[in-house]
């Protein structure tokens, strides 16, 4: 079993290493190679998960490699295989295989075809690494690798300035979060001492920290700080407020990349980390509270912005932010299992939404939904897929989103009324913007004269597969993987909550549909009345402007001051004047000793001899 897990980890790495050696004429072969390695990894994962579907629970820890051995710290490079990591592996390799296969056609004519696939392979390798990591440091390394591959793939079309900037923005924003994450890891390391051995291993951290907390009350505060710092890593990777700004821009990358990385798996890595460390987070109620409120805020915050976006991918990006907010909130409310469950169903239907949007973009070469219209007649298969995805996203029965979202809502209902109303109103918003997208892009009259056609089987097949999982995801019994004592129990279904969310969903779709049925004049008048609101939303609640201000008025002067300090004080002052000046002057003075006159040297020599004799005589006299 462990060897299988090692194989799963190394398969994408092998494809990443081999791809650059595939010659350009055989690029097709390279794509298939990457695809095959991913698919093989998926098969192996399925094999691993069979006992779990039969109701067996197992935890395997395998660490053949001793990695860091210092006095007081021992780290192994190992794998941790338990229901949580297997569920995440299923998502990563399953959705990954579908998207690899889809990319074969989507990227067919791209000049950077091999670069694209090696980027995807590197990403898959690092993501699987995160999932299987057995200790925090190992996880952190893969975490950074994931950030790197995300950067590479967002900037895949690097000749486009917007794409290059988006890649940089994503990377830098993540650095901010990861800096806190690293400090958090170091803090946890200092806290965790059991029997004099410090540890970062997930299996040993919990008892070690419990010991630490029992020692004194002030430790609780420090522990909360450490956990919040670790959460800041999640803020960056899972794009929660206030580090969410990179995700909408990341849509500059190719659509399959957006589907895999910026919707289904990588952004979910933060939620996975929360679930992986949930027993620790559970020890700090304050940290959980903060997490819940940030998640809840992000949910509503992002959903409102999705309403006015015109770019179909950006709408989906904001909806991803909003759904990630749900997951984070669920963890904060005390059930990482429910968060993970929503992560799984979300991976299916969000990948589906992105891929069908990609198929639309592939056919129309257009991302603006106001320029589409009437697609349902021209591309019925793609449109059906998109509709299924939207249903799941809004949370209509029997799509998978219904089950996971209602668990979150029920959880919020029983734990925190305020957050419950926030998330319920988000359901309405979600229905509103998805209804708007459907009514603008897929219904109505066509605005393009191009002859549109369905993509070939290579792109349709993944859509069909993901559609199936988006519908059936709620019936597969995936909850069993994550609803355990350690990850928090599942919430009792509440008929009031179900009725409320479903009716709000229907209401939202209805409002959106009827608004776009109105006459143009009425639409115009409505838009003019709420122009100020529109302005705020278009400017993304001035978040980008805020960052701009911070950079311009805080970071920039600070950097300038530091640059001045370094140039004037350090280089010119300490180095040039003090150190170099002293050496030059001392040399100038000492130079005079070297007169070049034999007799001076001789005098010194004789004086030296006299001194030596004098001291020798004194020593003999004393004896």
């Amino acid at each position: 079993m462990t060897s299988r897990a090692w194989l799963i980890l190394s398969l994408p790495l092998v494809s990443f290493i081999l791809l650059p050696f595939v010659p350009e004429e055989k690029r097709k072969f390279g794509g298939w190679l990457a695809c095959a390695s991913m698919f093989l990894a998926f098969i192996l994962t399925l094999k691993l998960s069979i006992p779990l579907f039969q109701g067996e629970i197992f935890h395997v820890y395998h660490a053949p490699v001793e990695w860091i051995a210092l006095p007081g710290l021992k780290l192994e490079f190992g794998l941790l295989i338990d229901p949580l990591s297997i569920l995440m592996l299923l998502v990563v390799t399953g959705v990954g295989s579908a998207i690899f296969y889809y990319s074969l056609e989507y990227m067919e004519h791209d000049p950077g075809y091999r670069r694209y696939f090696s980027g995807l392979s590197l990403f898959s390798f690092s993501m699987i690494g995160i999932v299987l990591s057995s200790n925090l440091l190992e996880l952190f390394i893969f975490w950074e690798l994931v950030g790197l591959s995300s950067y590479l793939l967002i900037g895949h079309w690097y000749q486009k300035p917007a794409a290059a900037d988006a890649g940089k923005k994503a990377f830098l924003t993540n650095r901010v979060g990861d800096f806190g994450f690293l400090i958090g890891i170091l803090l946890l390391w200092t806290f965790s001492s059991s029997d004099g051995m410090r540890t970062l291993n997930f299996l040993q951290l919990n008892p070690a920290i419990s010991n630490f907390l029992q020692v004194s009350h002030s430790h609780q505060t420090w522990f909360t700080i450490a956990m919040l710092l670790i959460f800041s890593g999640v803020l960056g990777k899972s794009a929660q407020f206030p580090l969410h700004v990179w995700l909408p821009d990341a849509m500059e990358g190719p659509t399959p990349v957006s589907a895999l990385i910026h919707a289904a798996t990588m952004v979910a890595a933060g939620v996975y980390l929360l679930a992986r460390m949930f027993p620790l987070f559970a020890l700090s109620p304050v940290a959980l509270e903060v997490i819940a409120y940030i998640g809840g805020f992000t949910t509503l915050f992002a959903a409102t912005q999705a309403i006015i976006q015109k770019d179909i991918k950006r709408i989906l990006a904001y909806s991803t932010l909003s759904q990630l907010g749900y997951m984070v909130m669920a963890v904060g409310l005390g059930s990482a299992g429910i968060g993970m469950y929503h992560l799984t169903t979300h991976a299916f239907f969000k990948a589906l939404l992105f891929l069908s949007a990609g198929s639309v973009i592939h056919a129309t070469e257009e991302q603006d939904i106001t320029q589409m219209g009437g697609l349902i007649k021209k591309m019925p298969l793609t449109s059906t897929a998109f509709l299924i995805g939207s249903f799941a996203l809004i949370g209509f029965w029997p799509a998978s989103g219904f089950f996971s979202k209602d668990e979150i809502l029920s959880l919020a209902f029983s734990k925190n009324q305020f957050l419950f109303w926030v998330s319920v109103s988000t359901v309405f918003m979600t229905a509103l913007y998805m209804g708007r997208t459907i009514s603008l892009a897929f219904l109505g009259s066509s605005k393009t004269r191009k002859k549109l056609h369905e993509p070939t089987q290579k792109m349709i097949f993944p859509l069909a597969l993901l559609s199936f999982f988006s519908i059936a995801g709620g019936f597969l019994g995936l909850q069993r993987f994550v609803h355990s004592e350690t990850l928090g129990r599942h919430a009792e279904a509440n008929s009031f909550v179900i009725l409320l969310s479903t009716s709000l969903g229907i209401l939202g779709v209805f409002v959106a549909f009827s608004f776009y049925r109105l006459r143009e004049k009425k639409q115009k008048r409505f838009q003019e009345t709420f122009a100020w609101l529109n302005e705020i939303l278009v400017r993304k609640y001035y978040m980008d402007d805020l960052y701009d201000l911070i950079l311009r008025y805080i970071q920039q002067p600070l950097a300038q001051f530091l640059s001045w300090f370094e140039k004037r004080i350090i280089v010119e002052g300490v180095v040039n004047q003090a150190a170099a000046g002293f050496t030059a002057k001392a040399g100038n003075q000492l130079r005079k000793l070297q007169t070049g006159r034999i007799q001076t040297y001789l005098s010194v020599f004789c004086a030296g001899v006299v001194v030596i004799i004098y001291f020798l005589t004194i020593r003999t006299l004393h004896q």
Partner: protein
Amino acid sequence: MISLNHYLVTSGILFAIGVFGVLTRKNIIMILLSIEIMLNAANLSFVAFSSALGDLGGQVISLFVVAIAASEVAIGLAIAVLIFRNRGILDPNEMNLMKW
């Protein structure tokens, strides 16, 4: 009675005169002469110790010294004469052609 100490003091004075000459004179010939004086001061103490301790070794060494002093003067004077012929100087401080 002239004791060993008298010889040694005389030898010390002679040596000091030699050192003084080497340090102050600007003429290379005078410097060579001063070196001779120092050598002879050493000879004097060798012979004095030899007779005081009844060991002939000291006298033998002083003969060696005389022989080496003779050859040293021969070479040293030859160099001084050649330099004077070539450059017309006797001051060793001006003999700086080999300095960087």
